Structure formats: structure tokens, C-alpha cells
């Protein structure tokens, strides 16, 4: 009897799904296709070709894809290999509380190479991927200068607090904070430019603003004291590392593919100013697809002339975890993390460590997020190349997320709360 199943049909976006088919002809070749429309109507698709066994069954947890967007045994491959119909579009969930991403899973009876909708699939399922869970509360934050969205787990608390920082994309991205709340953390998605009444362009990093946000979070009755965590990526991770260096309130920091020095715009904290290392845009490389590799455009923090821009990581009091994609085409993240750790070591400190992921690129997201090969981004007329090999990048996202949650549980959770 023919059946296409996927369990669970509705889940958190970082949970795996088990896909199975029964009742096919023995050794039949089929196509499984996943389709998703984002909130702006952009279509993302993936497909893989499988061969059923002699009993006409297919189990994605055991059976290898023969071809398509990936090859081999990858139970979640259809999710992380989703590609935009319009090249260089990135997949981002904007509204986090009330709607999931809907993914349509289609089964075709043969090798299907056309766009979806041209031929009727044999079977179809709808899956829901959520970025928050029931009981999670979302509070708009607009106090003092602070702009963001606070996600609280269900229950009385108090909960360990985390500030969530994204990079040069600007605006406010809430999906990671929503997921953290679903895992029991109070997470503040914090905007710092191109949002509300914040500056349109990042002209300087005002660390006082981030301290204000940290204090605001700690002042909330449902947030554990005395220290908070920070999760940060790209330009956000440069800021996250600065917070770790200068703010006592920050006791656990995750820096994903960021730098160990101030680049592009100055950093200001009270009366301290760190001038930036300049970039050399003339070193950019356009690859065959038309996307731009920027990793060679940044000056070197080891250069004598750039020492005043290097963050004083030896001043950090909390724990620091560097999550690094070795194939990062945007930044030399491995070099920067190694320099930072070397700096700690030379000062006799051991509060930092690195997880290095070969084959992973710049945009290390929560698990099953599609690899974004390159995307158009604010402030640059050409798409930027992020890097990453799809299979290695997907594995890195799964592993890194588990490590990140473990790290925060270890260093943020007091004896009172149960996580």
C-alpha cells in the first residue's frame, strides 16, 4: 500500500524529520522534491533521486540519494539543499511567533527535472518548520536607546539571558532568538543599525549602546543574574567579542566567523576609541558566478600598524567560544580566532576555545538552514560569496548548534533553573 510519511509534520526548525515511502515498485527510481515560499513570495526548491529497495520501500535515514541536490545518505538533505529560484536570494524567517515556514514535500514516480507544478506529483505532504514553540512570549523592546525583541520561554523563570547579534545585514532578525527561547533561554534579538530610529548605516560601534542593552536585559525580572551570554555572527561577532572584552556583564560569548580586531568603523566605549583597520576593496575577487569574495580585502591585525585596532581579549572575564567555518569566503575567520586564542594564551588565560569546521562557510546558521552560496546584501552592489561545501556546512550547523546550547547551559545556567 502506497504511503509517503514525514514525522514530525510540525516541528521546531532545528529538529530533524524522518521521511519514508512505502508501496513503490521494487527498485523504482523516484524524485523527492521540497518547495518553500518565503514571506516575500520567493520560491526555494530542492530535489533528490532515490531508488526504492526490493520491497518498494524508501527510508531517508538509511537510503542514499543517487543524484539531485545531494548524493548519499542525508536524511535532512532536502532541507539544507533548498535553493532560491532567483539566484543569490537568502532564506530568512522574519515573522517568528505566529507562522512557520511551510515546506511542501512532493514525490514523483521517476526522475523529475522540471519545475514543480508542471506535472502532478504522485504524493504530496505539507511540513511546518517553526522558530518558536508554544508558550514562548515575544516582547517588543523600545526602552532608552535599545531596539529589539525579547523572547521569553514559558514559565516563571528566571531564565539565562542571551543577546543575539547578526551582522552587516542590519535590521532585526529574530529567528535564532526564537529558537533559543524554545530551548529555555531568554533571548534578546538586538538591532544596532538600519532599524527603527537607529542609524541607517553603521558609522561606528557604540559599545555603550550594547552595555545599555545588557543592563536592560539583566534588569528584567525573568532574567537570571549576574551575567548574560552573547551569540553573534559576522560583524556581530566582532561586536560580541568587544562585549566580552569590555563588559563584565557578559559571561559567555559565542562568536561565529567574526574578527579579533575592529574593522571599517571605529569602536567607542565611554572615553575609549579604537580606530579601525582599513579594508582594501581593490583586492576583491569576482568568481565565475558573479559573486564577490571579500576575504582578502581586510588588513592584517598582526601588522604593526594595526595593533591599536586589536581587541584586548585578555581583558575578557567570561568564557568565549569561536565557531569557525574553514571555507569562509567573506573573512579569514580561522586566522582571526587563532590570533585571539594566541593572545589569550600569551597572557596566561585559558577562557577561550575554537570549534573549526572544515568545509563550512561564513553563514553558519541553526541546523537544516539551507546553505546560502552567495547573496545580495545591504551596501554592496554585487552578491557576496559566503563559501561552504553543502554537505560539510550542513553537518557543521548541526554540530555547532548542539555545542552552542551546551556551552550556554554550562556557563549561564545557575543551580536554580532546570534545563
Amino acid at each position, binding site marked *: 500500500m502506497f504511503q509517503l510519511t514525514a514525522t514530525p509534520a510540525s516541528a521546531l526548525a532545528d529538529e530533524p524529520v524522518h521521511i519514508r515511502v512505502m508501496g513503490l515498485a521494487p527498485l523504482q527510481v523516484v524524485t523527492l522534491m521540497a518547495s518553500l515560499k518565503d514571506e516575500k513570495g520567493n520560491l526555494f526548491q530542492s530535489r533528490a533521486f532515490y531508488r526504492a529497495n526490493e520491497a518498494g520501500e524508501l527510508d531517508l535515514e538509511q537510503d542514499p540519494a543517487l543524484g539531485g541536490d545531494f548524493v548519499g545518505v542525508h536524511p535532512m538533505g532536502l532541507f539544507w539543499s533548498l535553493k532560491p529560484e532567483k539566484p543569490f536570494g537568502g532564506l530568512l524567517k522574519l515573522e517568528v511567533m505566529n507562522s512557520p515556514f511551510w515546506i511542501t514535500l512532493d514525490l514523483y514516480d521517476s*526522475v523529475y527535472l522540471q519545475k514543480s507544478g508542471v506535472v502532478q506529483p504522485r504524493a504530496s505532504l505539507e511540513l511546518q518548520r517553526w522558530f518558536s514553540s508554544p508558550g514562548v512570549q515575544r516582547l517588543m523592546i523600545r526602552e532608552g536607546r535599545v531596539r529589539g525583541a525579547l523572547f521569553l520561554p514559558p514559565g516563571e523563570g528566571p531564565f539565562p539571558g542571551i543577546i543575539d547579534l547578526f551582522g552587516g545585514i542590519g535590521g532585526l532578525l529574530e529567528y535564532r532568538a526564537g529558537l533559543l527561547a524554545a530551548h529555555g533561554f531568554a533571548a534578546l534579538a538586538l538591532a544596532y543599525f538600519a532599524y527603527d530610529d537607529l542609524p541607517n548605516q553603521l558609522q561606528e560601534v557604540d559599545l555603550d549602546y550594547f552595555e545599555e542593552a545588557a543592563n536592560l536585559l539583566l534588569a528584567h525580572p525573568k532574567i537570571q543574574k549576574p551575567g548574560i551570554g552573547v551569540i553573534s555572527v559576522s560583524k556581530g561577532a566582532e561586536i560580541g567579542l568587544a562585549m566580552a572584552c569590555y563588559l563584565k556583564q557578559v559571561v559567555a560569548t559565542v562568536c561565529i566567523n567574526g574578527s579579533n580586531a575592529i574593522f571599517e568603523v571605529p569602536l567607542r566605549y565611554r572615553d575609549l576609541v579604537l580606530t579601525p583597520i582599513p579594508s582594501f576593496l581593490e*583586492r576583491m575577487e569576482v568568481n565565475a558566478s558573479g559573486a564577490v569574495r571579500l576575504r582578502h580585502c581586510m588588513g592584517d591585525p598582526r601588522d604593526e600598524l594595526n595593533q591599536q585596532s586589536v581587541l584586548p581579549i585578555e581583558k575578557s572575564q567570561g568564557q568565549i567560544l569561536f565557531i569557525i567555518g574553514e571555507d569562509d569566503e567573506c573573512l579569514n575567520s580561522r586566522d582571526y580566532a587563532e590570533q585571539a586564542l594566541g593572545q589569550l594564551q600569551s597572557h596566561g588565560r585559558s577562557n577561550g576555545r575554537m570549534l573549526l569546521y572544515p568545509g563550512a562557510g561564513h553563514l553558519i546558521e541553526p541546523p537544516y538552514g539551507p*546553505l546560502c552560496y552567495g547573496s545580495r546584501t545591504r551596501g554592496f552592489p554585487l552578491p557576496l560569496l559566503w563559501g561552504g561545501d*553543502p554537505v560539510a556546512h550542513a553537518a557543521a550547523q548541526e554540530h555547532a548548534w548542539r555545542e552552542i546550547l551546551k556551552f550556554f547551559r554550562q556557563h549561564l545556567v545557575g543551580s536554580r533553573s532546570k534545563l
Partner: protein
Amino acid sequence: MIQLTATPLSALDDEPMHIRFTGLTPFQIVFLQASLEDERRNMFHSYVYYKANEVGEVNLKQAASLGGDYVGVQPMGLFWSLKSEKVGIKLFKRDVMNSPFQVQLKLCDPAVLLTHIVSTPPIVCLTLERWYVAPGVTRTQGKEGHIRGVLFIPPREGHFPGVIDLFGILSGLMESWASLLASRGSAALALAYCNYEDLPPKLEKLDLEYFEEAVNFLLRHPKILGPGIGIVSISRGAEIGLSMAIHLKQVTATVLINGPNFIIDVPHVYHDQISQTLGFSPQYSSISNLGFIKLQNIFEENKNNANKAAFLPIEKAQGFPFIVGEEDKNVNSKAHAQQATERLKRHGKKNWTLQSYPGAGHLIEPPHSPLCCGSNVPSFHIAMYWRGEVIPHGATQEHSWKEIQKFLRKHLIPVVTSRF
């Protein structure tokens, strides 16, 4: 005063242009942009950074670029690194006779990349013309009997070697190769075999008598030398080219670019003989990062299980070179070429050449054609991945074009004292 010069300003597409800047400040970093609008209003751009020397000059024949679409010394880099604004569009000249491609060269302030390239006026600007036909080349519709194509004859009086130009699956006809070949001294027939005028839209069988008719049409032409005809063929066209070289004695020189050594899926028919086909297994196709389809693994299983008759008996053909793009992710042509040459060696044949170009992709074209890493192909629903690395592909095209001309001259012109 800043000056931008190019010599010549107007040239055949396979000719280099010498680009220079003067009047800059010493060691000034400049940003150069080349733009082209094709006949369907698609925009193509390339970008590069240079540093002026101590007297404020940049000479593209000597200066190494700092970054952008290419690094290093690449005098024609701005042309072959042009990229479509919309992913998946290939540069294609439809009207080869009446207009060139116009390439706008703009010298800009380096900071402009951080703002908006289009709205900021350039410091200095120059328009260059790239022609696909030399003055005096004539174009006639090749519409005799069943033949459908376009014939280009070189200028001036005389007799010229005849060449048939065969492509892969396209919509319409690509005339630019044939017009360039004619500009360089060979009479060239761009020959369609499907999806053109009243030819069938889809390929059901390949009747070699059609191609033989084309060969004889050329040999009958008053301006075309005999007794042999050459073929320049790429991709699926090279499958046909190889078959022609095997069956048609009049074919004496065959260039095969990135083609298979077997018959893919459409049988070849010659008089009463119907060939076997290898077939392919589409479930082994894979999809690139940008969503282009890669076909390189779809023949492996079929090759292992195939009837030997599906492989083309290459030892029966007259002399020819192969040209292979080693990065070729579309047809795995390197493996096919190796199998073909092994077969030739087994039969004691020596009249062949294999040229492998590391880093080149599937679409090896005349020099300075921009590398297209993937584009839409009619009758396929996913765009095809052509691959190739920009700089090696550019070098491959320059080298292979010269080699093709040399080869055609050697095998098609019977008397040494011909004039070109």
C-alpha cells in the same frame, strides 16, 4: 588630464585590443568597469582594479590587476570576464552582419563600488566595438534541398576551404563562429539540424544523409576548395561531427570540442544502418550551488552496461584533433576523449591530437568570449552547468582558436602556396 585609449577601437571579436590610461596621479588606484548590452537588453559587466605606475599610467599589456574579475596581467580580461547581471544568461550575438557588440569602458573612482556604480558618472569613458564579421564577408541563407543554415564566404576573389560548424542543442542558429571563421579565410556553413525554420523542433533521429547533403552543397560551391571539407563541432554537435568523420569520405578534417565518443540517445541513421544509442541515467545528474544541472555522471552506468555498438568507431575516421575542457562538468569530455584515443591507439592510428586544457569549461568558444558558468537551454527545464575557471578558460579559448585555424589550414588547403 586623464586619458583612456584603446587600439584598435573597433576590431574582430578574436582580435586583442590594447588599453591604456595616462594622466593619473602616481600609484593611484583606479576602478575600471566594462559594460555591454546584448540584443535582448541583458546587461553584462566586468570590474577590475589597477594601480597606476610612478608616472601615472596603466598599460593593460603590462600591469597586473589588483583584484576584481581577474588578477594578474590579462590584457583582454575585461572582455572575457564579462558577466551577465541576471544569472543564467549567455552572451550570444544574433545579428553578426550589421552591428557589433559595443563595450563601454569606464574609469571610475574606486569608492564608487561602495555606493552605486550606475548613478555615479565615470571619470572617463570609451566605447569599443567588437565585430563578428570582417568587411567584405558575405552571408547567404543556405537553403538548398533539405539543408537549413547560413553560409559565410570570405572577402575577395579566390577559393577557400569549406567548413561546417555544428553546435549542441540551441534555439535557432549560432552564426558567430561561422562568421569569424569566414573573416579568417574559411568558407563556413553554420548548419542547423533541429529547432530552426522548418526543421523538427525535437531530435528524433540524426540522418547522416542530411549532413552529407550539406557537405556536397559546400563542395559544389564555386568559391569553395575541395576535395575535402572540415568540421568544427562542439558538445552534441561533436557527436554528429565524429559520426560524419567516420561515414563521410569527403570529411577530411574534424575538430571535436567537448563531445562524447558514443551516441547519446538519438540514433544516427545512414542509408540503411541505424546505430545503437548508449542512453543515460538521469538519476545521477547533480545540481550545482546556483541550481544548474550537471550531467557528468549520467553516462557511467550506461557505459558499463552498453552494447559496444553504441560507441563510435573512431578508428574509421580521417585525421582530427580533439579539444577538451578538463573542468568540463557537463559531459565529462575528458573521460570520453581518453576512451576514444585509447581506441585509436589500439587500432594503430596516429593521425589524431588530443588537447587538454585544465580549468576550461564546456563552452570553449572563440577568444574573448565571456565564460558562462551556466545558462538556460531550450527543452531542458533546469539551466545547464558549463563550469570552467575564468582565467584558464580565457587562455584556452585564445590558444585553441589559433590551433583550430592552423589545423584547418593544414588539412584543407592542398597547395602550400595559398595566400591568407
